[in-house]
């Protein structure tokens, strides 16, 4: 048997690997076949049927997504029979849909709307079979509007295959079939971790982030308020996609300009807090290692990162007995918030009650995180609102500025300076790499032994990555680590988190330190990022992140001047009393089922 097959599509012959689908074949030829339930991140469903094509010798149409290309097949993608059926299917979906597109958040970024426009669907063809439903706005992060659901099950497959959370499943059957939580409970009452992967895999406006930017416009308009925003590393490599730039364009400085035009009083950098996170978390790791190696205490190892609020809620639900493995460090967003209303307020001489602290994030879980009861260590809400990259894109569009030709501006100070280590937090493996750049140097007095500080083994899109770093020639204070082989792992996407956590649960985890990010690819693939997000797009955003890092004058967290000042003038030392109060947190056991 050969490993390749030859088929003919629209008269053109194409050679394919065995097991490829007709859809794959068409893609290879740049023939566009419309799809709705298909997403390259997910297994094939074959539900929506809009990708049907005609196969010679077969009476019924065949779905191109789920039909394997077999040698000698002759396929036609655009016969009158295909077109008519396809148009009918789209019209059916429209008849079940809430077609108030003008007021939909996903308008102009909706796959059903696009198809309905391409095929010029007449809304009057069929009677409406839209079911009455209520929009679920119970969650801080995710809004679920069944009236816009086309039942493609992309969210269900995302929640199962990428995240292994299974908060959403299909319920009922026939005309009543719908996407549902357990017992149709509100999203905030179930095991949803708010990662928002369902949002970026949803073809329509059925799943969106809860939006808070109207409140921000109000605050900006209030002269008494000092409104600041900090933007996460992943925002700057993805925001351009919503505003006309090609995928993978770095728009950091244009973004700063645009946010200033919106009227933020200061545009600051979450990367600053990421660098602080590295100092705190790096020292926490060393502290744990010391207790193990020197004091021979029983300490929870591996230590696991806690930057990703989706991951944090996941472990709280799924592995509640292993919360002691989580670093006690807050995420950069929350560190930033706590410092904004204390350190920043003090330095700037602003009453913290007048500060509105906004976080621009690639994430939907950050909205939930900002509202966790633990996150008020400044005495106020440390973070007043978390906005997604998409929301920021909308705000910029509202201003009417021509983003493409916008001049460039640097971040404001204070808390606007950062290192390349802070930037790479956005990509899977980035927190690990940033931590190693600092920890290795603290322990040995030397830079990490990688060319240009690029720790390549921790980079890339492999689901679970691991590496071992041998520690030699330590400075005296860390002589207990002499010769230790530091074992690390990185997992992204919660299905991969399960793999490393199952090891922890079994007691077989060989690692000292694990980085886990809820979203595939890390924050650049976050639930708050521009839609679409797929493998190719994730890779381009990652490339941009490392490019941004390579171009930074400072590449290591502990070398950032503003960070050093923060410790000198305010926090005193990592893991100190003030840090403990402002920058560290506790976790909550939750139900797994």
């Amino acid at each position: 048997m050969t490993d390749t097959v030859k088929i003919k599509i629209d008269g053109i012959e194409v050679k394919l690997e065995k097991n490829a689908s007709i859809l794959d074949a068409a893609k290879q030829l740049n023939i566009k076949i419309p799809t709705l339930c298909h997403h390259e991140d997910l297994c094939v469903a074959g539900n929506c049927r809009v990708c049907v094509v005609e196969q010679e010798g077969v009476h019924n149409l065949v779905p191109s997504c789920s039909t394997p290309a077999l040698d000698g097949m002759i396929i036609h993608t655009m016969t009158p029979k295909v077109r008519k059926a396809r148009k009918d299917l789209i019209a059916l979906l429209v008849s079940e849909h809430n077609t108030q597109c003008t007021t939909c958040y996903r308008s102009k970024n909706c796959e059903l709307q696009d198809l309905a426009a391409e095929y010029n669907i007449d809304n009057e063809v069929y009677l409406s079979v839209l079911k009455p439903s209520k929009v679920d706005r119970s969650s801080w992060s995710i809004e679920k509007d069944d009236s816009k659901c086309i039942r493609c099950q992309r969210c269900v497959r995302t929640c199962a295959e990428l995240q292994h959370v299974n908060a959403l499943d299909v319920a009922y059957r026939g005309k009543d079939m719908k996407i549902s939580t357990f017992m149709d409970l509100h999203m905030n009452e179930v095991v949803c971790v708010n990662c928002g992967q369902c949002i970026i895999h949803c073809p329509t406006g059925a799943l969106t982030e809860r939006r808070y930017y109207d409140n921000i416009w109000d605050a900006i308009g209030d002269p008494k308020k000092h409104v600041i925003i900090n933007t996460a590393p992943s925002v700057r490599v993805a925001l351009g996609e919503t505003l006309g730039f090609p995928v993978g364009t770095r728009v950091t400085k244009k973004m700063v300009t645009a946010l200033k035009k919106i009227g933020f009083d200061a545009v600051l950098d979450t990367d600053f807090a990421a660098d602080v996170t590295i100092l705190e978390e790096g020292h926490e790791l060393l502290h744990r290692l010391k207790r193990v190696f020197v004091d021979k205490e029983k300490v929870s190892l591996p230590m696991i990162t806690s930057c990703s609020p989706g991951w944090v809620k996941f472990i709280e639900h799924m592995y509640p007995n292993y919360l002691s493995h989580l670093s006690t460090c807050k995420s950069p967003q929350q560190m930033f918030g706590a410092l904004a209303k204390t350190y920043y307020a003090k330095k700037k001489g602003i009453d913290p009650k007048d500060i509105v602290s906004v976080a621009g994030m690639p994430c939907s879980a950050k909205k939930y995180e900002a509202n966790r009861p633990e996150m008020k260590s400044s005495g106020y809400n440390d973070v007043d609102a978390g906005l997604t990259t998409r929301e920021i894109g909308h705000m910029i569009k509202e201003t009417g500025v021509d983003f493409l030709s916008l001049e460039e501006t640097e971040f404001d100070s204070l808390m606007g300076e950062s290192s390349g280590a802070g930037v790479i937090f956005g990509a899977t493996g980035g927190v690990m790499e940033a931590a190693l750049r600092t920890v290795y140097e603290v322990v040995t007095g030397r830079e990490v032994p990688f060319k240009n500080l690029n720790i390549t083994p921790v980079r890339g899109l492999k689901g679970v990555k691991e590496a071992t770093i041998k520690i030699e020639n330590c400075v005296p204070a860390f002589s207990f680590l002499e010769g230790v082989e530091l074992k690390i792992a990185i997992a992204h996407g919660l299905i991969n988190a399960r793999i490393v956590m199952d090891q922890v649960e079994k007691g077989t985890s060989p690692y000292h330190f694990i980085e886990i990010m809820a979203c595939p690819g890390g924050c650049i693939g976050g639930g708050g990022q521009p839609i679409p997000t797929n493998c190719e797009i994730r890779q381009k955003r990652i490339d941009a992140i490392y490019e941004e890092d390579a171009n930074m004058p400072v590449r290591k967290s502990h070398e950032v001047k503003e960070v050093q000042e923060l410790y000198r003038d305010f926090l005193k030392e990592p893991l100190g009393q003030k840090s403990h109060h402002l920058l560290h947190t506790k976790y909550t056991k939750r139900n797994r089922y």
Partner: protein
Amino acid sequence: MEIKALIFKLAEKYGRKRENLIPILQGVVQEERYISDEAMVEIARQLDISAAQVYGTCTFYSFLNTKPKGKYIIRVCETIVCDMRGKKEVISTLEDLLKIKIGETTHNKRFSLLKTECLGWCHKGPVMLVNDEVYTELTPEKIRNIIAKYKENIN
């Protein structure tokens, strides 16, 4: 039996893999007439799948009720041949006798009245199921006797 103990017993009997889910759900329905949210969560725990998956499966099948039902679940066949042979009269007789409408359960939780698809007795319609028992060639008179029997049958 306490619901957790029942589910544990069923999981021991059938196994804890996904393919054992439906027999377990049927076992719960057999005892309780319906699968409560507490039961679904407990089944999810036993099988280590999500509660939403249990719920999604239950709601697919007509016999896996997720709402409380009476001790005797009456299902009247509504397919065409039974319809032609007097389904409407069967339903109105039952509604009169039980003083409930289709879809409802009597206050004393003794009877639930439901419609169902073809029961496979078209040559002897109209028919109904009471729990697992089939009653064919129904007439108002026959129905009154059947219901009387179940009303008497306290245990």
